[in-house]
C-alpha cells in the first residue's frame, strides 16, 4: 500500500510539474521581444497551424516532364533548397518548404508546398518564389580596389559607392549541360565537375583565358556560392571546381548547379491566405471551447459518479496536461481541426473511465465481498472493452493521417495521440488513485460514494 501511495504522489507531482511547464513556456515565449532568441523554456511555445496563426499556404506543381526519373529526387530536393533560401530572404519565422512526391494518391504530380506563417504580402511572396533559379558566372572587377570618389548628395549627405567586387559575364546556367560529383583521383577530395554545351564551352574558354590567376565567381540567385581561382584557360567546356568541399557540400553544390542548369518550372496550383485576425479569433474560440468542454465534463463526472468521478477528474486533468506537454515537445502543429480533435479526445478519455466505473459498480452490485476486489475485477474486465472500443478509432486516425492533407493530418495526429494517452491514463492513473484511497468497508456512505446516477445506496448493498 505504501508503494501505491508513493506512486500516486509521484504521478500527482509529475502532473503539477508538467502543468507548470506548459504554463511557463507559453508565458516566457509571449514575453520574448521580437528579436530575442528563445532559450530554455521559451523554446517550447505551441506550434500553431496557418489557420490559427494567419499566413499563406502555397502549392506548386513542378513540371518534371523533362527530367530523368533517376534525377527526379535530386532535382526536387535542389528545387526545395533554392525555394527555401528565397523564402528565408523574407525573414519569415519558421517557414515550411516541403516536397510532396508524386504517388498513388497524388495523381503522380510532384508538388512543392510552401507554408509562410504570418506573411500577408502574398503577391510579393509569389513573385519572388516563382522565379526559376538563376545561375551565372562573374569575373573579378579589376577596379574594385581603386579609391572611389566620395560625393555629397543633394540632401547634404555623404555618398560613397562601393564598387561591386564581381562583374557579370555572358555565361549563365543556360549553357550548363550538367554538373557531376566526382572525387579527385590523387587527393580523394570531393570536386564538382561541370560540363557546358557547345556555346557555353566557347564562352568558358574565353573567360578563363582572360582571367588566369584571377577569381571567377559562380553566382546562384545573386549570391556567390563558389569563388575559385582560374589556373589555366579551359577549352572543351569541362571544368572542375575544387574548394576543399566536404562530400556533402559538393553534393549540395552539384544539386544547385543542376537546378540552375535544368530549372524545374513550377506553377502555382493552390493558394490559401488567412488573415491574422481570423486566426486569433479561431484560437480564442478554440481555447474557450476546450475550457468549457472540460469543465462541463468534469461536472458531469462528479455529479454522476461521485467519488470515483472526482478521481476521474484528477486523471482527466493529468491527461490534459500530458497532452499539452506533448503538443509542445513533439511538436504537434495545432490547427482549428486539431483543437477540435483534442476536445473530442477529452470526451473519449473519459470513456475509458466510465467503462471502468460501470464495471466496478456491477461487481459491487453482484455482491462482491469488498471494494478493493470490485475495483480489481472491474479494471481487469473493463480493460478488454476499453481496448476493443478504442482500436476502431485508432484505425480511423491512422488512415486519416496517411492520406490526408496537412489540415487532416493535424486532426488525425491529435486524435491518435489522444486515444493512446487516454487509454494509458485511464487504466494506470485512475487505478492507482482508486487503490490509494484504500477504502475497504462497504457501508452506506461508501456505497453512495461508489454508486452513480440515480441508483440508490440500497440497490448497491444486497
Amino acid at each position, binding site marked *: 500500500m505504501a508503494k501505491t501511495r508513493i506512486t500516486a504522489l509521484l504521478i500527482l507531482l509529475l502532473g503539477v510539474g508538467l502543468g507548470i511547464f506548459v504554463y511557463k513556456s507559453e508565458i516566457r515565449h509571449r514575453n520574448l521581444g521580437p528579436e530575442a532568441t528563445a532559450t530554455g523554456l521559451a523554446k517550447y511555445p505551441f506550434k500553431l497551424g496557418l489557420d490559427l496563426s494567419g499566413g499563406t499556404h502555397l502549392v506548386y506543381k513542378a513540371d518534371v516532364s523533362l527530367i530523368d526519373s533517376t534525377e527526379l529526387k535530386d532535382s526536387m530536393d535542389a528545387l526545395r533548397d533554392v525555394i527555401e533560401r528565397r523564402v528565408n530572404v523574407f525573414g519569415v519565422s519558421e517557414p515550411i518548404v516541403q516536397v510532396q512526391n508524386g504517388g498513388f494518391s497524388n495523381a503522380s504530380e510532384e508538388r512543392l508546398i510552401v507554408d509562410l506563417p504570418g506573411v500577408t504580402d502574398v503577391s510579393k511572396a509569389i513573385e519572388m518564389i516563382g522565379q526559376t533559379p538563376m545561375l551565372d558566372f562573374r569575373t573579378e572587377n579589376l577596379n574594385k580596389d581603386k579609391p572611389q570618389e566620395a560625393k555629397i548628395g543633394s540632401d547634404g549627405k555623404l555618398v560613397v559607392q562601393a564598387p561591386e567586387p564581381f562583374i557579370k559575364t555572358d555565361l549563365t546556367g543556360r549553357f550548363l549541360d550538367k554538373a557531376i560529383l566526382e572525387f579527385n583521383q590523387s587527393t580523394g577530395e570531393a570536386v564538382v565537375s561541370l560540363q557546358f554545351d557547345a556555346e557555353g564551352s566557347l564562352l568558358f574558354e574565353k573567360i578563363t583565358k582572360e582571367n588566369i590567376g584571377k577569381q571567377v565567381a559562380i553566382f546562384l540567385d545573386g549570391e556567390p556560392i563558389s569563388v575559385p581561382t582560374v589556373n589555366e584557360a579551359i577549352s572543351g567546356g569541362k571544368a572542375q571546381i575544387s574548394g576543399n568541399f566536404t562530400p556533402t557540400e559538393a553534393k549540395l553544390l552539384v544539386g544547385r548547379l543542376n537546378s540552375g542548369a535544368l530549372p524545374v518550372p513550377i506553377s*502555382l496550383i493552390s493558394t490559401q491566405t488567412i488573415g491574422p485576425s481570423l486566426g486569433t479569433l479561431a484560437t480564442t474560440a478554440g481555447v474557450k471551447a476546450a475550457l468549457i468542454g472540460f469543465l462541463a465534463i468534469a461536472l458531469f463526472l462528479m455529479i454522476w459518479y461521485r467519488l470515483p468521478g472526482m478521481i476521474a477528474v484528477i486523471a482527466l486533468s493529468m491527461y490534459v496536461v500530458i497532452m499539452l506537454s506533448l503538443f509542445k515537445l513533439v511538436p504537434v502543429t495545432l490547427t482549428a481541426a486539431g483543437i477540435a480533435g483534442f476536445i473530442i479526445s477529452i470526451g473519449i478519455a473519459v470513456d475509458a473511465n466510465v467503462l471502468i466505473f460501470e464495471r466496478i459498480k456491477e461487481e459491487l452490485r453482484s455482491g462482491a465481498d469488498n471494494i478493493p476486489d470490485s475495483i480489481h475485477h472491474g479494471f481487469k474486465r473493463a480493460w478488454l472493452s476499453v481496448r476493443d472500443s478504442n482500436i476502431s478509432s485508432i484505425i480511423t486516425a491512422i488512415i486519416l493521417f496517411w*492520406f490526408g492533407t496537412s489540415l487532416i493530418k493535424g486532426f488525425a495526429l491529435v486524435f491518435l495521440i489522444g486515444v493512446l494517452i487516454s487509454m494509458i491514463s485511464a487504466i494506470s492513473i485512475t487505478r492507482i488513485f482508486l487503490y490509494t484511497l484504500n477504502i475497504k468497508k462497504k457501508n452506506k456512505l461508501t456505497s453512495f460514494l461508489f454508486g452513480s446516477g440515480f441508483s440508490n445506496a440500497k440497490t448497491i448493498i444486497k
Partner: protein
Amino acid sequence: MFIIKYKKIFVLISAVLVTLSIASMIIFGLNLGIDFKGGSLLEIEYTSVRPEQEIIEDTIKPLGIGEMLIQPMEDNGYSIKTRDITDNERTNILESLGNDVTEKSFTSIGPSVGAELVRKSLISFILVSLGIIFWIAFSFRKVSKPVSSWKYGLIAIVSLIHDIIIPVGVFSILSHFSGVEVDTLFVVAILTILGLSVSDTIVVFDRIRENIRVGHFKTFEETVGRSINQVYIRSIATSSTVIIALLALVFFGPSSTKIFALMLTAGMFFGTYSSIFLASPLLVIVNNLQEKKVK
C-alpha cells in the same frame, strides 16, 4: 427486454430515418465546396459600412472574372466565390473595391487539387470501412453460436451505414437552407463517426458475447435483452461525455469547426442509438429467422 419486445418498431424507426435522409440527399443534393470543385473564395471585410451587393458585383464584373457568387458575411463582410483565379486577378479585385476593404482570407484551389481530394476521400473511406470490417470479423471470430461471427460483423456494418447516412441527410437539409458546403472537414467528420460509433456497437456486442459464453440466460432473445439492460446506461454515459465536448465546440468553438462538430454530434447520437436500438434487435431478428429455417 423492453427493447427486444418492441424490436420491430425500433428497426422501423431507423429505416424511416434512413429513407428520409437518402430522400433529402437526392432532393436537395449536397453542395460541394471549393475544396472539391476547385475555385476561389475571397472573404473581405469593410471597415465602415458595407455597400450593397449589386455595387460589388458591378465593380468586379468588368474585370473579366466571369461567374461569381457573392454572399454577405456577418455584419461587414462579403464572401466572393469565383472560378480559380490568379494572384493578379485577386489584387485587381481588391484594388477595384477600394481602400475601405481588408482581405480576411483567400483560398484558390486548382482543378487538379480538387479532383485529387475527391479521390483521396473516397479511398480513405473505403480503407477505413475495410479496416473496421476486418477488425470486427477478427474480434468476433470466436463467436459462432447461435449467430455466426460474420453476421455480427454484417449487422455492425448495417448500423454503421445507418450512423453515417442520417448525419449526411441532416447535413443535406442544412446545406439546402443555409448554403453550408461539403469541405475536407466533412469527410473527416464522416470517417471519425465511422471510428467512434463502431466502438459503441462493439461494447454492446461484447456484453452479449460474454453472456452467451457464461450461459446465464435461456434463450438468445433473453440474452440479448438482458445484455442491453446491463449496458445501456454505460453506453449513454460514454456517448454523453463525447457529446458534451462536441457541444462545447459547436457553441463556443471556432467557426470553421462548427458544422464539423455538429455532424459529429449527430453521428455520436445516432451511433449510440443504433448500438442499442438497432444492432441488437437486428441480431435477434436474424436469429429468429435462422431458427425458422431450421424448423
